[in-house]
């Protein structure tokens, strides 16, 4: 039956995506691949919960079975949460359906011919508006839609073949090496303006008085390996919304700035007054970070 089919490996996001599906007035179905997930989704208020039951423990391995089902039902939309697994499954389904897909959209609106989305382009420099005809595949993050009122949905179990070619060997929790920047109220960012790893102590001292965590640019984490990759901020790294982001010796390439542009206040210290970071900043000091940072640390101690 036509409708909107949603999937996420994050239960909270499943509920939010169902909120969107129900708001369109179309049939809202949650797609799950384990009994545990089906049981959880059952309480989210969906019109129906589908449990694709097969031998593989990996959701991605059901892409063909799911695509065949969506085609037979003439689904309007497959909407997945934008986690690595959600994106992977979504793109495979789009591949099997040979249909349009929009990844990691900023907004999603039903229109007569299908769906209109907005998404970022060129590393966040631009916003692109696109229209997808049904059937369509979209991935989106949390915080866009309200979860519906809890309900008691019927669960339909479908015995399906799964692709067994990719075999799961082990799964281990990802040990966070660095700090969780998403939880930080204030973040001090460090960039290539630091010439030696020891000099990061300047940023650490400043962060200590501010009560801030340390973040960095991709180069600092991946090229110089001074900080764990979890601590780099940018389009392919952490995207954060602190109260204050204070950058030290960061030129402000768009790929980095995109990771902090929802910060309430952005401040920057850089020697080059033409550095792009100043265009992205509320407050800035043009000056040598090696001189300014210790003075700022001392001044903040007195506040």
């Amino acid at each position, binding site marked *: 039956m036509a409708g909107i089919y949603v999937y996420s490996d994050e239960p909270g996001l499943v509920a939010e995506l169902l909120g969107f599906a129900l708001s369109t007035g179309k049939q809202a179905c949650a797609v799950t691949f384990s009994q545990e997930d089906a049981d959880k989704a059952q309480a989210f208020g969906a019109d129906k919960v589908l449990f694709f039951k097969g031998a593989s423990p990996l959701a991605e391995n059901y892409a*063909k079975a799911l695509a065949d089902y969506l085609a037979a039902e003439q689904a309007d939309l497959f909407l997945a949460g934008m*986690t*690595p697994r959600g*994106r*992977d*499954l979504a*793109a*495979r*389904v789009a*591949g099997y359906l*040979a249909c*349009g*897909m929009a*990844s*990691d959209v900023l907004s999603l609106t039903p229109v007569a011919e299908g769906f*209109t989305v907005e*998404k*970022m*382009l*060129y*590393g966040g*420099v631009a*916003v*692109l*508006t696109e*229209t*997808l*005809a049904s059937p369509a595949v979209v991935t989106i993050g949390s915080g866009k839609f309200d979860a519906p009122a809890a309900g008691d949905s019927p669960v339909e179990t479908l015995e399906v073949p799964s*692709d067994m*070619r*990719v*075999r*799961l*060997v*082990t*799964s*281990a*929790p*990802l040990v966070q090496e660095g700090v969780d920047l998403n939880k930080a109220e204030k973040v001090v960012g460090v960039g290539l303006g630091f010439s030696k790893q020891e000099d990061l102590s300047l940023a650490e001292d400043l962060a200590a008085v*501010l009560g801030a965590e340390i973040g960095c640019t991709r180069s600092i984490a991946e090229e110089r390996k001074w900080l764990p990759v979890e601590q780099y901020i940018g*389009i*392919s790294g952490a995207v954060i919304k602190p109260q204050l982001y204070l950058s030290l010796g960061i030129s402000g390439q*768009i*790929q980095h700035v995109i990771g902090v542009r929802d910060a309430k*206040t952005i*401040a920057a210290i850089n020697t080059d007054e033409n550095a792009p970071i*100043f*265009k*992205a*900043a*509320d*407050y*800035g*000091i*043009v*000056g040598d970070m090696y001189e*300014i940072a210790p003075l700022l640390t001392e*001044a*903040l101690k007195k*506040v």
Partner: protein
Amino acid sequence: MPKIVVCYKWVLDEALIRLRADESLDFSAAEYKISDYDRNTIEAAVRAAQAIEGTTVGLTFGTAEAKRSIKDALSRGLDESYWINAPEASRADGAVTASALAGALSKIEDVRLVVCTEGASDTFARQVPPRLGALMDWPTITSVAELHIEGDTLTAVRKLKDSLETVEVTLPCVVAVLPEINEAPLPGLKAVLAAGKKPVTELAPADIEADLSPKVTASSTRAYLMSRKNLIIKEGSAEEKVAALVEHFHKEGLV
């Protein structure tokens, strides 16, 4: 000899795109480059080729502009290169790109592994590798942070939202790697000179079986302008500048 194909993209350098106040984009100063993360992907393929004692083939789908990418890609250690030269590439969506790449891949013999980047630096859509796997009906592994090949078995460590997942597959397969998989060296002068002598195959859309009509209709593009206060302190001694910044922080209730 078994082959490893690396798919890469020739993209606009977003750092050189200027934004106008009316929300339009100015591409006049923009240059092209190999998508940043593809540099690590090429290096991953070069290393994988040593493990299977095979050769590496670069593959790109692009407009006439992408011709300039070939020497750059070859200088990074690839043995030969394929270029699908198609004007359709300028308005391609994920469906079109995956279809074109699959069409070209069917022309290359003895491919054991296709290595893609998780996402290109312009769209960062992360669609093409799984779509390609679906079109070719090859097993696909995405979000790969580590890659090992022994005999016919490829083992990958996938970095997911909050887990590290180790999976294995029997070749052939498609993998999508994360930039953190390795450190890509800068090509030396010798490699750059040698790149000019490596074989290049140009394909036209008519040479491949592919659906080059996009499934997504783009309606508008606007600059993402950020509205910030831009109060930049340039004058005065270092102490005065710091005092002025602290004053701003104070007013914002940040200290």
